């Protein structure tokens, strides 16, 4: 399995709104973060939801976001973060990344 991103890479979550069983929360779509960990290879839930159990696996990343980047009015310390598990097809390189 080819792994597109490495730990430390800057990535952006695709700003897309496809129908179906999507496990990418709205609040991070279009937002940039940093790959915190490569969590392994898993089946795409968007395929599994329709019974396609033989679909290829794809890398699952744990992506770390700065809370201040997610919410313009976040009133906690600048160091606060959120880590969200995101499948590779939802990620693209972000500016500042070392792809």
């Amino acid at each position, binding site marked *: 399995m080819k792994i597109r991103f490495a730990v430390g890479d800057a990535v952006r979550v695709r700003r897309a709104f496809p129908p179906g069983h999507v*496990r990418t*929360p709205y609040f991070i779509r279009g937002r940039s973060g940093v790959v915190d960990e490569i969590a392994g290879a898993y089946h795409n839930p968007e395929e599994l939801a329709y019974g396609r159990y033989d679909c290829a696996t794809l890398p699952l990343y744990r992506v770390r976001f700065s809370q201040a980047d*997610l919410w313009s009015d976040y009133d906690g310390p600048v160091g606060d973060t959120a*880590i*969200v598990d995101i499948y590779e097809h939802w990620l693209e390189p972000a500016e500042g990344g070392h792809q």
Partner: protein
Amino acid sequence: MTADTHSHDGHDHDYDHDHSRTFQPDIEESPFGQYQVMAQALGELLIEKSVITADELRAQIEWLDSRSPADGAILIARAWNDPDFRKLLLENVNAAAESIGLSAGDIPIRAIENTPSVHNVIVCTLCSCYPRALLGLPPDWYKSREYRSRTVREPRAILAEFGTVVPDDVEVRVHDSTADLRYLVLPMRPAGSEGMDAAALEALVTRDCMIGVSLPRTPRS
């Protein structure tokens, strides 16, 4: 018996025969929503088509209902007392559980370590993903829209409502378990617990501190 239950119709009752006023509603009398209908229909179809048996479905529900935070507490207490076990727990919770005869189930579970500089809290913004094998069924508040939305939006306010005030020099790190992994917080060992044995340590580990909305109990001096 109060006066109004035996004087309402003018004759003397020792007890009230008006059952409609004294019964609590049965489960079947609460609203039966679309998702409950779908879940029940799915279960019936799986049995009808011999994919699973009724007994297997029942046994799975029984197993889920039998899980409790006690197993999670055993893992945390052991990690506090045993550095090798702690290392294994942080690498692979399922393997760590199996090594001491507990089952963490088939879904991969990660332990997330609290440190003096990072406080972790777990949420599933999309539904109710939770390490059920080790903590039991999630509390209702964990599944509520308010917890799911506010934990990523204003985590410090949510934590404060649980009585957990995190200092500003400590990072609050929210983990949104949206995918294939489940998370368990490994809290910091409380001060004053030095020398305590496994059973005493387990009593300090609450469900909520393994979700990250709280801290372990403090030992009584």
